[in-house]
């Protein structure tokens, strides 16, 4: 029989119910939820796990926000080697072959549209960066009080031989000023042009083929931003194919995503794309992928490798809990990916990746993991926060924390349409020893 303490029981019951509602509604719980720990995602977990881990995470750094495409046609990027191809995923989840070395379309303009008030000048990426210059013609805009800006969503597309598909995610933000600015601010007399310069940082580059940068320039009225003129600008370049990797007559080159770039569909690699739109991978390790000068650095071609780091053997695997017909994110904002990291053959935990609803507005995304028991964490794997990418590609960093070795695992999370999820290109890097 329960003790009857009168109204206090009812008050407790009501207060707990209200507390539960607040939790459901995401009402901040106080400093622990709305303080700096929440904003960076992982440190609070490190504090729970073991104090020594905190320092390691702080040193792990923050990776740039990613922007991805959406809907059918989004790419799945498999592998990072220069011969790798991009393959769009169609409505059924099938991977369409891409001709990596397709010549550029014959009618590609230097920049278009020629009739717009804007012009884009951009060169081929160097070290993953594209220098961009957008020029606006003041006389072509509706009024002197209008200004121009750049849309912060830009993509690099590749020519497949028949169409342009999104190829590289743009992870970097313009280092110039994409914000709205009065036209006259950057005007260069007597040409009456406004020039905006900046840099775009790509998630990847180096593949061969014909590419173009697609960037939206926007002109809008100073006092009525809804009145605007939006123009998609393109700049083109070609990266010649490496003669060594270029397929010869009758020869089939298989890319690291297991899809022959000539469209034969032959697969020899570890990747398979199932009818359920699930990309699965098996660990692949070759001795050639390890840099002897920096033994904990694994070549990008080694995916889901068992990596020797600091005397520990780390094996990474994952399983996607794909939402068959729904969005990648569930209603709870959970990205259904479960990954497991095994260290020295043991693990009683792993990690899931999901988007915290309270951080979504801040563009945060994070992953976490712990190996060993929470009570006695001796090895832990954590990820820094990411931008939520309903579809698209983003890089991940997994600081693997041990003592005294603090290497990092890195990888690429690929989120395709209809719940297609893959994690690709797991690499391990030492703290700083290999930087030089």
């Amino acid at each position, binding site marked *: 029989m*329960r*003790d009857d*303490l009168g109204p*206090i*029981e009812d*008050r*407790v*019951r009501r*207060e*707990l*119910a*209200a*507390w*539960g509602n607040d*939790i*459901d509604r995401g009402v*901040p*719980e*106080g*400093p*622990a*939820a709305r*303080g*700096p*720990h*929440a904003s960076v995602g992982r*440190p*609070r*977990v*490190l*504090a*729970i*796990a*073991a*104090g*020594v881990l*905190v*320092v390691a995470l702080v040193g792990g750094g923050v990776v740039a926000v990613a922007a991805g495409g959406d809907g059918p046609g989004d790419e799945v990027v498999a592998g990072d080697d220069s011969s790798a191809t991009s393959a769009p995923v169609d409505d059924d989840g099938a991977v369409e072959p891409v001709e990596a070395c397709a010549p550029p379309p014959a009618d590609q303009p230097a920049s278009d549209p020629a009739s717009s008030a804007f012009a884009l000048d951009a060169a081929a990426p160097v070290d993953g960066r594209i220098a961009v210059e957008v020029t606006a013609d003041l006389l072509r805009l509706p009024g002197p009080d209008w200004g121009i800006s750049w849309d912060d969503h830009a993509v690099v597309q590749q020519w497949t031989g028949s169409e342009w598909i999104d190829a590289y995610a743009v992870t970097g933000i313009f280092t110039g000023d994409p914000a709205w600015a009065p036209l006259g601010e950057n005007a260069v007399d007597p040409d009456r042009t406004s020039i905006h310069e900046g840099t775009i940082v790509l998630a990847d580059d180096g593949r061969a083929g014909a590419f173009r940068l697609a960037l939206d320039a926007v002109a809008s009225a100073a006092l009525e931003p809804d009145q605007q003129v939006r123009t998609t600008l393109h700049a083109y370049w070609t990266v010649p194919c490496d003669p060594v990797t270029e397929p010869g007559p009758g020869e089939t080159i298989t890319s690291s995503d297991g899809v022959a770039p000539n469209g034969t569909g032959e697969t020899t690699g570890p990747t398979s794309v199932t009818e359920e739109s699930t990309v699965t991978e098996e660990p692949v390790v070759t001795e050639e992928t390890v840099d002897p000068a920096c033994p904990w650095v694994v070549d990008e071609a080694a995916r889901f490798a068992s990596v020797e780091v600091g005397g520990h053997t780390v094996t990474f695997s994952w399983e996607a*809990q794909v939402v068959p017909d729904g969005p990648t994110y*569930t209603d*709870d904002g*959970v990205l259904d990916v*479960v990954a497991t990291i095994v260290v020295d053959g043991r693990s*009683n*935990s*792993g*990690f*899931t990746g*999901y988007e*915290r609803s*309270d951080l979504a507005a801040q563009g945060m995304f994070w992953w*976490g993991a*712990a190996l060993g*028991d*929470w*009570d006695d*964490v001796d090895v832990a794997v954590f990820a820094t926060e990411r931008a939520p990418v309903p579809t698209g590609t983003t890089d991940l960093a997994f600081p693997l924390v041990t003592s005294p070795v603090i290497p990092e695992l890195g990888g690429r999370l690929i989120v395709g349409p209809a719940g297609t999820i893959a994690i690709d290109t797991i690499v391990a890097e030492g703290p700083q020893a290999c930087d030089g």
Partner: protein
Amino acid sequence: VDHVSFEDVYDGQRQAAIRLATMLTGSRAAAEEIVQDVFLRVHLRWHEVEHPPAYVRQAVVNACHSHRRGQERASRREASVAVVEAVHDPVPDHGLRAALRALPDRQRAVLVLRYFEDLPDEEIARLLGCRRATVRSTARRALQQLREVVA
């Protein structure tokens, strides 16, 4: 558990698990961490789990207890003092909820399981690994303390 899928349990239990873990730990952030870990374990042992909701609840209670012990241990480490203090900062709200938060872990757990989860004392005793009489005495002490605070 051939009649229910992991996805169903996850969808149906996750939010409840977060509520419970938040109340037991006092931290939404820690609760999410714990719950994701719990569901991973459930997933890995799915074919061994006979009663998923009960298993999840037990795992959450255990994990929250483990979490608190881990925090106590971490707080003793010099390197983590600043961060742990931040996590444990008293919540600047007032009234009954603040008093609930301030209760000792075991007392708060008993009240949450009894008045929020509506579990019988016998089940609470099983979850907390104690006798039913202990649940009753713990609840009485907690309620008396709350009554003094809000009086």
